[in-house]
């Protein structure tokens, strides 16, 4: 069989997938680019060409800068916490103890809970008057008065991050656990004989096995955290005083609540660009890590 026929056949087999992706993602993306240069509204006018006005207005607006900072905080802290907690949990689950199998099985629970359910659940937990968190903390004496967790700018974002972490760190843990199980036992025992302490052992013996899978998890989680919408929409809608408004919420507001499809599109593309830059930087990192460990 000739190579060119193989390639043609492969393209034919790819065709359905590519056709769907081009029509439902490719075309809308191109159209978003077109819209971003117009002052089109969501319903009604087609809009006319306004050049780079939308971009200039969006980038210079205080809203955008502030929202970018909020989004970055959310992404960096929640992803970092998920990674650390996930690896710690995986190290624990890799030890031998009674009930380990059950605990491993339970790890899937938060991850399987739909995001909207998770957000609703935590909103109830954080409720300032009747929430479980206030009740638990005051009953054990850690708090003397009920607090408004989602109503104070300095706790609202943290509260969201906790809710997001709780759902996502088990996934990191499961990925890390699978990688740990691939570490050959004789290597760890050998390093013990060499007298390596637990920290050195983790750093030099175990970590190299974790880096690859963890980096992939890191990339995926960071991209997702940067695009975050659902959990914030359900829990705070960006409040209080816009302290939890992320980029996706801002785009929604611009394009759908205010119906300015044009400037909404330009803002969405700016976000896309940011995520792409992040992803490309990460991809380089992954390749480097894969290279050094190969």
């Amino acid at each position, binding site marked *: 069989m000739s190579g060119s026929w193989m390639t043609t056949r492969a393209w034919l087999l790819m065709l359905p997938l590519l056709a769907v992706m081009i029509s439902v993602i490719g075309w809308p993306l191109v159209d978003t680019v077109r819209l971003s240069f117009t002052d089109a509204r969501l319903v009604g006018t087609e809009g006319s060409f306004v050049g780079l006005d939308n971009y200039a207005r969006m980038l210079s607006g205080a809203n955008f800068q502030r929202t970018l900072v909020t989004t970055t905080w959310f992404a960096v802290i929640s992803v970092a916490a998920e990674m650390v907690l996930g690896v710690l949990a995986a190290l624990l689950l890799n030890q031998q103890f009674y009930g380990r199998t059950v605990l491993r099985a339970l790890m899937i629970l938060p991850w399987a809970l739909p995001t909207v359910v998770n957000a609703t659940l935590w909103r109830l937990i954080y409720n300032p008057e009747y929430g479980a968190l206030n009740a638990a903390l005051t009953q054990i004496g850690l708090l003397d008065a009920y607090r*408004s967790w989602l*109503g104070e700018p300095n706790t609202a974002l943290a509260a969201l991050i906790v809710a997001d972490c709780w759902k996502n760190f088990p996934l990191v843990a499961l990925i890390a656990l699978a990688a740990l199980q691939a570490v050959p036992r004789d290597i760890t025992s050998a390093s013990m004989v060499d007298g390596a302490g637990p920290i050195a052992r983790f750093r030099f013996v175990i970590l190299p096995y974790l880096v690859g899978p963890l980096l992939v998890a890191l990339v995926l989680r960071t991209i997702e955290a940067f695009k975050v919408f659902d959990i914030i929409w359900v829990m705070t809608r960006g409040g*209080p005083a*816009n302290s939890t408004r992320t980029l996706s919420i801002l785009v929604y507001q611009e394009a759908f609540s205010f119906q300015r499809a044009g400037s909404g599109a330009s803002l969405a593309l700016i976000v896309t660009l940011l995520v792409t830059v992040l992803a490309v930087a990460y991809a380089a990192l992954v390749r480097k890590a894969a290279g050094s460990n190969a």
Partner: protein
Amino acid sequence: MLKSINRTLLGAAFVSGAFMPHAFAETAINALFMAQAAYSEADVRAMTEAFSKANPDIKVNLEFVPYEGLHDKTVLAQGSGGYDVVLFDVIWPAEYASNNVLVDVSSRITDDMKKGVLPGAWTTVAYDGKSYGMPWILDTKYLFYNKEILEKAGIKSPPKTWDELAEQAKIIKDKGILATPISWSWSQAEAAICDYTTLVSAYGGEFLKDGKPAFQSGGGLDALNYMVTSYSSGLTNPNSKEFLEEDVRKVFQNGEAAFALNWTYMYNMANDPKDSKVAGKVGVVPAPGVAGKSEVSAVNGSMGLGITTASKHPEEAWKFITFMTSQETQNQYAKLSLPIWASSYDDPAVTKGQEELIAAAKLGLAAMYPRPTTPKYQELSTALQQAIQEALLGQAKPEDALKGAAENSGL
């Protein structure tokens, strides 16, 4: 064919034949309502059932969303011709008319309607001299108070002015009856604007002057200052800044608020012993005024029912709207929302058991103050919500926050 197979499967899967279409149904219309304040979901469903009984050839599919989703859903559904009838807030006709979302129904409104409905109610549906629907919910924020707590504190009568409210709250706080006696809905949402507007009307403020923001000074500033003082002095429940109306009701019903600003619906709900710990102790008066400026204050929080331009069945839609807004229907369900019809307020069938509410309504409804009428209302409101929260949280001084809102309002 495929559809009917689906239906059969569905019926089998979910036990009953509830999904089978009505035997008579010829036309189906879709109506969008809110699940928040005013008429309860059960009330709307019961009214619709009565309508279907009277009009077996029209089937009405009901959809309920939170108030927060009502505007966006209405606009987004235009693309699909989704709804025939939509509930809209008094602040939206300007935008809906400019963007061709609602049908101008001025010609459909009969003389009987014009004569019978309270004049104030018509402002709910009017923009540029045209009517874009029928008023349905005639509502404003009242001051509710817990009679038992006031009695315990030795307070003879509820406050007539906002300063008196603060004084009375202080007495209750100082006597240790409640740590934070007043509850409001100051979440970053339209609810906060409604409370703010009530105060703006009390202080004789103005939102816009010649189309430009005017709330940064005068009454607009006084109103925000009052909110901030009440919050920082500890008289207001600090959780108010994440409350919507339902949270206020819950706190009030649990006996944890001496005073609360809320819509009509709270009166009968808080008086229902099944859900409420304060049944029988609920007092209601118009929101207070400011000495020398106003006797009472009120926000126009009314809502109307309109036909969307995407509707293919405007006749049936109008029939449904006339039924829902008819005096007969409204009188029958006058517990959570009061009728738009003038003569209903003297009808014993309506007033019985809620004389206090009716008395407050007569004063409050007459004083209703509008939120600004502009196609850019959503942006203005979003900017104001942010300003109010920044001021409450101490992130900005009230005057600076309002100045910022004026700049961001898009006006």
